[in-house]
């Protein structure tokens, strides 16, 4: 049986394209945060929510064994659902310092939110325009980033913290 070269080439191309599409379909690029794990966080300066003269930077985080940076807002419903885990974490794990970054929110609403649900944060900063969130590779809120004292990202949580994420934070910081 004679098989022409052009048929072999066409067949090879078809197989190649099918393999590329098959592989492409299996890759999920949305909300992919694995490229940040193991990297150091960027330099930043975070002004306190109710005191413009007080601020922290990445240098301050080096003093903490672990820091959990949490982006939240009073208008964000999932932030309410995760808040109890943050409050528990602040009570249970003293070696984890929690930094809250109030995202595109009104100061009074944020303060009332913390009065109502409790304040688990060691420092609450403001990100009125959302620019700081970009330094941390944030898509939306709530999102949390766990860093060690070398400022290396250990974990990034997209969405609200739940029991599974909470247990994982405890495991990672043991």
């Amino acid at each position, binding site marked *: 049986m004679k098989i022409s070269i*052009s048929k072999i080439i066409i067949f090879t*191309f078809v197989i190649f394209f099918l393999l590329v599409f098959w592989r492409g379909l299996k890759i999920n690029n949305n909300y992919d945060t694995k*490229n940040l794990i193991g990297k150091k966080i960027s330099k930043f300066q975070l002004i306190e929510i109710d005191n413009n003269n007080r601020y922290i930077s990445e240098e301050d985080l080096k003093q903490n064994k672990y820091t959990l940076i949490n982006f939240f807002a009073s208008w964000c419903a999932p932030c309410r659902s995760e808040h109890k885990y943050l409050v528990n974490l602040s009570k249970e794990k003293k070696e984890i310092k929690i930094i809250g970054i109030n995202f595109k929110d009104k100061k009074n609403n944020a303060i009332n939110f913390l009065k109502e649900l409790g304040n688990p944060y060691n420092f609450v900063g403001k990100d009125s325009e959302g620019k700081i969130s*970009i330094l941390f590779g944030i*898509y939306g809120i709530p999102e949390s980033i766990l860093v060690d004292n070398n400022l290396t990202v250990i974990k990034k949580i997209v969405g609200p913290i739940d029991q599974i994420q909470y247990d994982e934070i405890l495991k990672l910081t043991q």
Partner: protein
Amino acid sequence: MKINSFLFLACIFFFTSTYSSENKTKLLKVYKNLRCLVCQGQSIADSNSDFAVTIKLVVQDQFKEGKTEDDIYKFLASKYGEWIVYQPTFSKNNFLLWMLPYVTLIFGAVIIFFLVRKTKRNKVN
């Protein structure tokens, strides 16, 4: 005197508007090459989502700081991965993506060449 003042103001207006329209074009080019990660198939230029609005502010700031287009793409890719840039930079991971059109073109030309030669030979015979 009045004419001089008028000409002076007209020059300022002309140069300012030219400069700002150049800046707008430059910004728009960057926005169009950035993917809105929380939207369905939209670029940052097309979207008014919270994420797109913030990215636009960051791009404007970085241009003001004197960063180049490439610097901005590298910065955003370091935070969100290559996925955020519509036109990825050439690397070992995506060399096939860049080379495939050229390879296909060469293959196509080779196939056409052989087919034409074969047809000519058949006609001669």
